[in-house]
């Protein structure tokens, strides 16, 4: 029994999805070893926010525990001691920080991303952290138990989730953002305002259009103040930086694999080294890098397809919908939701119900969507956008959802017999 050896570096969401796909498509084909530097099985990183909010426990967010790896015959080497220091491409082996070698026939790099830390003084103070893994959550929970004031820098998805989590744990939280729209990568001005209002009502404070200049601490090295470029300051006991991520490609780059913003991969997830593949937040594909889970899963499917030697699937970047995981806040955003001089807008507002919906249309196809307050039809619009469905007939009914569209324009839908449902006709 001499199976080819498959080594996976990175036991995050992308890596785990790949394993899952491989266990479906070719469970017997490879002898698999997985390296992960967090001391857990595999957990659902996007559930860190509910974990912080106390809505979920660690057990509940585990995807594959160690038992799973055991059952599938996958070797899991998790924990700091298993950190991969080097890829020896000449000899096709990886080297851990402890100098342990592992041979590979196929190597998968899924090293993910690193939180971006502002290049300003004070980021090394106690109480300044990012929001990236279980350790961060544990630090934040303990800070909440002992301290009162928190500042979250960055009103992106992660920042807002962190802020609401801390808020829920009793802290006075101010969100600092360098734009006047929270979630400005996902929301336009109007939906941003609705979100701000909703979160303010839940106790969050905002300092918008603010640029952090310096973080100060007390003599013990504990953070106590933030200073902004306009001279204003905020007292705080905790600073969480959530201003984005950067692909973590140092290992690959050091091994001579071609990288730009991330590890460069082809449509089949292959790097410039034919034995080495990469996926997830560490890669760069056709100029794009990734930070949301949906394309990662697509990449995992494509790569599994390749590794199982079916060899037909290719990866294509599709607009990805986002959601904010704050209980009671529903928003959905996909594609080019701001539009340009060539786009048209369908807009629905029910302010008192906190509902705002905008569909951006160009050449009679959907270019982008922002849904705030009522996101029920997000998947439908996403489908129409992905399929580039011509809206001529659907347009008058589009805003009011799939059921009405099916009623009024049955011809736009085809009967999907296998699923016994209707699909949008392409």
């Amino acid at each position: 029994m001499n199976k080819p050896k498959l080594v996976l570096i990175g036991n995050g969401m992308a890596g785990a999805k790949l394993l899952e796909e491989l266990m479906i498509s070719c469970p017997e084909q490879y002898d698999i070893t997985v390296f992960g530097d967090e001391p857990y099985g595999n957990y659902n990183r996007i559930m860190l926010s509910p974990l912080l909010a106390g809505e979920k426990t660690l057990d509940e967010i585990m995807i594959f525990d160690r038992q799973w790896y055991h059952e599938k015959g996958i070797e899991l080497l998790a924990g700091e001691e298993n950190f991969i220091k080097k890829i020896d491409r000449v000899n096709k082996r990886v080297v851990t920080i402890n100098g342990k070698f592992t041979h590979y026939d196929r190597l998968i790099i899924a090293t993910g991303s690193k939180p971006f830390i502002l290049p300003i003084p004070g980021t090394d103070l106690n109480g300044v952290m990012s929001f990236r893994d279980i350790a961060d959550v544990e630090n934040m929970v303990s800070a909440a138990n002992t301290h009162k004031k928190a500042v979250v820098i960055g009103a992106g998805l992660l920042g807002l989730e962190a802020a609401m989590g801390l808020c829920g744990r009793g802290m006075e939280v101010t969100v600092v953002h360098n734009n006047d729209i929270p979630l400005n990568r996902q929301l336009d001005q109007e939906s941003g305002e609705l979100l701000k209002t909703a979160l303010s009502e839940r106790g969050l404070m905002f300092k918008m259009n603010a640029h952090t200049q310096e973080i100060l601490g007390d003599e013990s090295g504990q953070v106590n103040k933030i200073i902004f470029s306009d001279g204003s300051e905020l007292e705080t006991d905790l600073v969480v930086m959530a201003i984005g991520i950067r692909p973590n490609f140092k290992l690959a780059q050091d091994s001579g694999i071609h990288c730009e913003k991330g590890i460069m991969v082809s449509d089949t997830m292959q790097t410039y080294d034919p034995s080495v593949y990469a996926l997830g937040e560490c890669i760069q594909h056709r100029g794009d890098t990734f930070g949301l889970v949906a394309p990662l899963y697509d990449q995992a499917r494509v790569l599994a397809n390749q590794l199982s030697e079916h060899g037909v699937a290719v990866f294509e970047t599709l607009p990805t919908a986002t959601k904010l995981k704050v209980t009671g806040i529903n928003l959905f955003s996909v594609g080019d939701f701001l539009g340009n001089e060539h786009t048209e807008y369908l807009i629905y507002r029910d302010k008192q119900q906190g509902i705002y919906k905008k569909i951006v249309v160009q050449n009679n196809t959907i270019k982008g969507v922002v849904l705030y307050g009522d996101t029920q039809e997000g998947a439908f619009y996403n489908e129409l956008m992905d399929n580039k469905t011509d809206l001529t007939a659907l347009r008058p009914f589009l805003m009011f959802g799939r059921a009405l569209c099916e009623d009024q324009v049955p011809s736009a839908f085809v009967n999907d017999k296998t699923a016994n449902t209707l699909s949008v006709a392409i």
Partner: protein
Amino acid sequence: MNSNQHSATQSVNKTEIKHTTCAYCGVGCGIKAEVNPAKRTVNVIGSDQHPANYGRLCSKGSALGHTISTDGRLLEPEINGQQVDWNTALDTVANGFSDIIKQHGPDAVAFYVSGQLLTEDYYVANKLMKGYIGSGNIDTNSRLCMSSSVVGHKRAFGLDTVPGCYDDFQQAELITLVGSNTAWCHPVLFQRIKQYKQDNPNVKIVVIDPRKTQTCDIADLHIPLNLGTDVWLFNGLLNALNEQNKVNHEYLDQHCQGFENSLQAAQASSGNLNALADTLGVPAQDLQTFFDLFCQTEKSITLYSQGVNQSSSGTDKVNSILNCHLATGRIGKPGMGPFSMTGQPNAMGGREVGGLANTLAAHMDFNDDSIDRVQRFWDAPNMATQPGLMAVDMFDAIDEGKIKAVWVMATNPVVSLPNADKVKAALEKCDLVVVSDCIADTDTARLANVKLPATGWSEKDGTVTNSERRISRQRGLFEKAGNAQHDWWIINEVAKRMGFDSGFNHTNQADIFREHAALSAFENSDAEGHRLRDFDLSNLQTLSDEDYETFEPIQWPINAEFPEGRDRFFSQGGFFTPNRKANLLGITPKLPVNLPTNDYPLRLNTGRIRDQWHTMTRTALASQLNQHISEPFVEINTENAKQLNIQANDIVSVKSKWGEMLGRVVINENCKPDTLFAPMHWTQVLSKQGRINTVVNPEVDPFSKQPESKHTPVNVSQFSAQWHGFVLSRHTTAWPEVDYIVSAKGKQHNRLELVHGTALNNPTQTMLAWLGFDNEQQVSEQGLELLSYQDAESGLYRLALINEQGALQAVTMIAPHQNLPERTWLAAQFEKESLNKRARNALLSGYAPAGEDIGRIVCACFSVGEKTIEAAVKSGCCSAEAVGDQLKAGTNCGSCVPEIKEIIGQMDLGT
């Protein structure tokens, strides 16, 4: 609860049963009314015992209980818009009339009255004008309705005698319906005929109508003759009767004169079947079928209505029909005869009192003997000695300044008369316009100097006569509302203030009725004891107040010979001509006066719709009656629509030499090519430009002076709309500056349909203004919540307002095209105290959340929608009866049954 409260509750909920008659058409249905005087509410059902309807009621009659609100009622007298007391108002009217009479003579004043007046009201109005003021200038809206029948009857029979009765409808073997959409205009008679045909499948029904109407639903044969060609047809029939040896020479010899003459004319115009078919525009084969049926069926009745009467040869049309019945002796016998179906509840009563300008009183005309007789009976100081001006001429005389004071009672000539804008202009110029009405805002009342609040149905109390000469009581159900008074009281008060001390001192309605009956009996027999006049209520001259109160429906005459009334006349002759013989007339057919030209190439026909009556001042108060058809429409043939590039639901402009109207187009095959149909109902109160009578030519029949409402040359063009829209609002909103506006009352909301020729600059802002707000700020200040949807590039804008309790306050939508959502579901949301989340989210889509939309209302009685019916059909109801069993649709008045069948038919085609 203490005993006081208990008894108060009891009296609040106490109801009583009263028998009365319907307010609308001439069928004169009996109504059993469950009245709650304290709450001022009434439930109406058809009276089982009334011989007109035997328990049936149509959609309009069934909705009477929804028209009695005091909202919108005229409740106080007004002079130039200022409320005054009765004394002031009555003095102003009396002095105004007296002054003008003094200066310009009695012919400088006029009354324009109505078939909605009760006989008692009518009687004193006629008496005041013809016996005391001394002019014949009292005419009535019945002029527009059946005056051609009156003259036709008089020319043939000597007097205006309806020879048969409703019972004949259910004894005939051939029923020919001429110029009548009976299904919609006389629904209860239609239902009776329909039931009779169902029970007797051998009975044949022929519909003669240029238009395919819902009445054709029960027809064995439909003859869609060209507009205005009826005389050719009936001359052809007379000719065929002669050729097939069906002429009853015995009857002719004994009881008639002029047959040879009539036959000659018939042969001349209609002797050749193929040429006749050409003239009528129908297949010769169908004509032959009709002629054969008529020839072979002794028991034939011919029912006719406005399609015959409203014509410049209306009287001739009537006589051409009467000729055929006289020539065969098929008259006055069970199941035989001609029968005019009248349009108004008391058109017949008006004829009886003489409330037409060309009759005097009690079926007497302006001849010396009659003038003398009536003068003596009334002890009249100023007898009119010649006929007055008839409707169209009357308003022309007002326009010319010859008539300087007019009193309009219970009617709306600015809407119903042809060349209606001229009528409006005439009233604007007139020195003194008095309007008595129960409704505060009518097109005519807007032009009044003096408005007098009259009692309406549910308060009025007196008698009416229906199409079959049956006198019934219309009873007061409630106390008079506000300061309203009965018309007879108002007329009498004015008369007394004009100085006529005697003659108008009646103590009550019964008192007037007795006088009316006495006049009918007065000197009403010749030396041999023959009654001189058909109309004779001699047995009722001494009717007590109590007997008047409990008066049961009965057909006149009611005299010594016929104490229980009389169902039929003339089976044994006995006509009311000097020699007691009926006249057959030689009739040379004539085309309508104004024929199509290059500029006006199409022919406009007008008529009624199922759920509205006359000028909608009362039926439009019942929201369920506005659901079936809620806008003025123009029906056009598919071929013409194609030529003119008109799409369904477009707004079209219909223009004639006389005026212009805007309506929504309905495209189908009901009208023949090059003809249009539009309803006569819409007013300026309810629509900005929906009055079809502004377009209709003011030509009249030379004998009856009845207008030619069924034929006007017009052109039609698409109104170039930049946008279409609507406003549904819980509270009345002002009309915006928009080209096309139609208002309709719905349940707990009012609806405006809007279409405009130029684009809106700032749609959202403008639409907010329609709802009464300058900006969003104001909306939230009033505690309202705003929902909006826009697709600017597609020109779609929608707004809704919801109050803090979640109840819908208003919704408005516009689009660059007419494909806006159906209003049915949106309208229904106003009935909810609070919108649930699903409904709220779906609101601006205009469509119900899946499965909740019932579609356009088809059955007004039970509010059953088209989509509900379609669903029932899909689930296996494959007949109108099955649909009725499941949904009740069509099981009350039945007038929607043809449409239900159509829906079933269309769905059959679809599958």
